[in-house]
């Protein structure tokens, strides 16, 4: 507008360069992390129980960030948003890591169930399922073959959607064709529905089925809320990192970070809203087969962890992200982004880890309580390395800014009133 952008950046100015080295570092860290986790897992002599659950936390952590980034991309198209063009390519690049998480999900979550290995899911063991009417009735859905089919289907949807939108956007870098924007906008509605279905059922399969007797129709929304929350934090951190390396400088401004911060604040509330809605209905109806999942999280040894989650995932970030001054200061926002990622981990840990003692674990989670292990961290390093490798690989040598997007000038001139 009146401030006028002197000129739009040219293609060769925004090419991401020299990312091969950090990507390689990511791959090495990933390999070391996964190797260490496996060694620790064998050494623990608990039938790989802790190994499986630590891996699940780590995989879900980075998978949810990729899915949040995919949703971010779709959301910009479905709402035809202008402000976000400057940072959208970073989110698009994060969805590129889905390709590399696919073998991890298939290898650690899907295939073992085919061989009736119950190191994560109790229902994978026929001996366990036998005798429980609730689980036996679900075995038509919860079985190895169907699970592998579903995993392939989920990733086909996620990767397919990601490739279409990233591909169109990159093609637009070259031909500057506004028709591509309209095409993406038209397809984004269907894509977001497919995304929602795949993500909801993936949350049921990967996490809710840890306690196969329990069920919550809101669980998919709950996982999605945390996923988008943490991916916004990752998006802001990744953009800041790229800026530090000399990319996107003068393109991404404090206004864009302010908006990412606003979404983060909103999704602090959305997560709390969904989490509370889920627990309140169960609390009110007070039916044993529904409340037991919460019971051993809230009334036993996990009690402190539950309070930590409520305070740390809701009250503190709500107050912390409330002020616009926080969102408009890069360093302060960066600190809050790290905080958000820590509590996304806490959230997943609270969801997954109590189930380790349950069922095949042979204990009562309310008595056993949290049992931390170095595997929790090495698994995060392992899967995190793979994620960073996938993210940087899909960014390297390509424009880090959607220079062909007709809304780019609007995004560059964007100001919060």
């Amino acid at each position, binding site marked *: *507008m*009146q401030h006028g952008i002197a000129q739009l950046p040219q293609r060769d100015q925004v090419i991401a360069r020299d990312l091969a080295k950090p990507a390689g570092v990511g791959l090495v860290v990933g390999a070391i992390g996964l190797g260490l986790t496996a060694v620790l897992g064998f050494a623990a002599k608990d039938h790989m129980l802790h190994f499986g659950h630590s891996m699940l936390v780590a995989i879900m952590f980075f998978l949810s960030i990729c899915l949040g980034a995919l949703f971010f991309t779709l959301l910009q198209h479905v709402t035809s948003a202008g402000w976000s063009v400057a940072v959208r390519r970073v989110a698009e690049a994060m969805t590129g890591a889905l390709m590399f998480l696919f073998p991890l999900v298939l290898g650690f979550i899907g295939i073992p169930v085919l061989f009736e290995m119950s190191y994560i899911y109790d229902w994978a063991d026929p001996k366990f399922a036998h005798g429980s009417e609730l689980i036996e009735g679900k075995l038509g859905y919860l079985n190895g073959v169907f699970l592998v089919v579903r995993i392939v289907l989920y990733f086909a949807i996620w990767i397919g959607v990601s490739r279409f939108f990233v591909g169109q956007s990159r093609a637009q870098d070259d031909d500057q064709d506004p028709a591509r924007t309209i095409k993406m906008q038209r397809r984004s509605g269907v894509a977001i529905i497919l995304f929602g279905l795949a993500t909801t059922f993936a949350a049921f399969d990967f996490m809710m089925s840890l306690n196969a007797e329990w069920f919550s129709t809101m669980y998919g929304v709950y996982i999605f809320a945390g996923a988008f929350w943490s991916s916004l934090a990752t998006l802001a951190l990744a953009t800041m990192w790229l800026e530090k390396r000399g990319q996107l400088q003068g393109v991404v401004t404090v206004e864009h970070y302010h908006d990412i911060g606003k979404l983060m604040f909103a999704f602090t509330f959305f997560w709390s809203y969904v989490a*509370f809605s889920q*627990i*309140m209905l169960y*609390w*009110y109806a*007070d039916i044993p087969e529904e409340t037991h999942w919460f019971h051993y999280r809230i009334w036993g040894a996990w009690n402190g962890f539950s309070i930590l989650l409520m305070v740390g995932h809701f009250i503190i970030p709500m107050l912390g992200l409330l002020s616009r001054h926080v969102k408009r200061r890069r360093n302060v926002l960066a600190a809050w982004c790290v905080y958000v990622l820590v509590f996304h981990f806490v959230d997943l840990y609270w969801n997954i880890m109590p189930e380790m003692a349950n069922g095949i674990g042979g204990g009562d989670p309310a008595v056993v309580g949290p049992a931390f292990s170095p595997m929790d961290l090495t698994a995060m390093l392992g899967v995190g390395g793979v994620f960073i490798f996938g993210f940087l690989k899909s960014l390297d040598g390509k424009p880090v800014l959607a220079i062909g997007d007709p809304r780019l000038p609007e995004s560059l001139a964007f*100001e919060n*009133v």
Partner: protein
Amino acid sequence: MSDSNPQEKIHGVVGYYTDVDSVMEASRRVRDAGYKRWDSYTPFPVHGIDDAMGIKPTILPWIVLCMGLTGLGAGLLLQWYTNAYDYVFLISGKPDWSLPANIPVTFEMVIAFSAFTTFFGMLALNKLPHLSNPLHKLERFKRVTNDRFAICVEAADANFDATRVRSILSGANAEAVEDCPVDTSRAALPLWLHGVAAIATCLTFIPLATAFKGRFATSEKPRLHVWPDMDWQRKRKTQTEWEMFPDGRAMRLPVEGTVAQGELRDDFEFYYGVAQDSSVPAGVTYDSGTMGMKDGQAQYSWLANYPSKAPATAELLERGQQRYGIYCAVCHGDVGNGMGSVALRANEINALATGWVQPKSLYSDNAKAYSNGELYHIVTHGISTMKGYGAQVKPADRWAIVAYVRALQKTQGLKPNDDRLDGIELKPAPTIKDVRVSEAPSDAR
């Protein structure tokens, strides 16, 4: 009114601009010249103009925060007052004041308070609604809603100097600068707005008047059912029939082996008046002052004292006096001599002759010989022709009555040689036949 100073006649000086950059520049110059009473007028929101004009950030967010917190407190207070204080009602066995149930309402109250504060606070801080402005009289100013920008420095400003303002405004590439005369026309509400306000005011009285009529007038018509689905719900009420269950009852019996909330009677002393290791007395027989004999053996170990949940205190006695007055005195008499108003009336109509059993004096040796537990049992289940009061009187109140009966036995019904008299001569106690009840005609009810 004096016309000597021409400056008094103008409302302010207005400068007009054709583009945003000029109006921004002019705003900066006016700001730097130190004027306070002035404003910029633009056809659309201009980013950064608040900074160019030197407008301080609004305090509205802080007001909204305070009101949001007030809403939080109000929501909690409302629910505490209605649910836990003023009208306590057990719902689903949850605590009376139950935080999880309160969160949705509290959340909505925070939103309502914040939203209304934002909206009305914005209006108030902007001094809106503003019904008239002298600028609207200017022909040129009308383009400000379309494609022109304007700045008006008002004559009311302490530093106002028309010549200087004109030069500042025109210095920033102004299209035109003109004086705005003071608007002397009466700024009155249009007539139709008065009409609308009057009609709206009248309409607000309709609900009030309807409610008033409903409260104080009678009507032959059946009541209005505004929400029929709430008036006739597809649910069953307590103690009604329902063909859905084989036994035809709408209510379900407790599951075998379970105890309903507040129905656990594991304190035998308190609930049954027997020692904790005794069995629960039911269907006891009465045998010369001792209850529950079987083959000459006492079946139950009756409590001699008071249970730990209802210790004999002054409060218990006071409560007992009150409860006795309500439930017992009508037959046994205020002082326990068996001459309550029922007994007197029965005597009057000569009911004894037709087989009516006279209420017993509580001072009889028989009555004094009962243990506390036995007395409690009698209050609960009755004895001979006396009905039990267990359904009406709560256990703690039954113990209070027992305590009061004991007090009556200690202080009333003295005999001439009672050592409690300490030498005072006592007139013979009246019997029921001595008491003249009524001068009323014998057909009185």
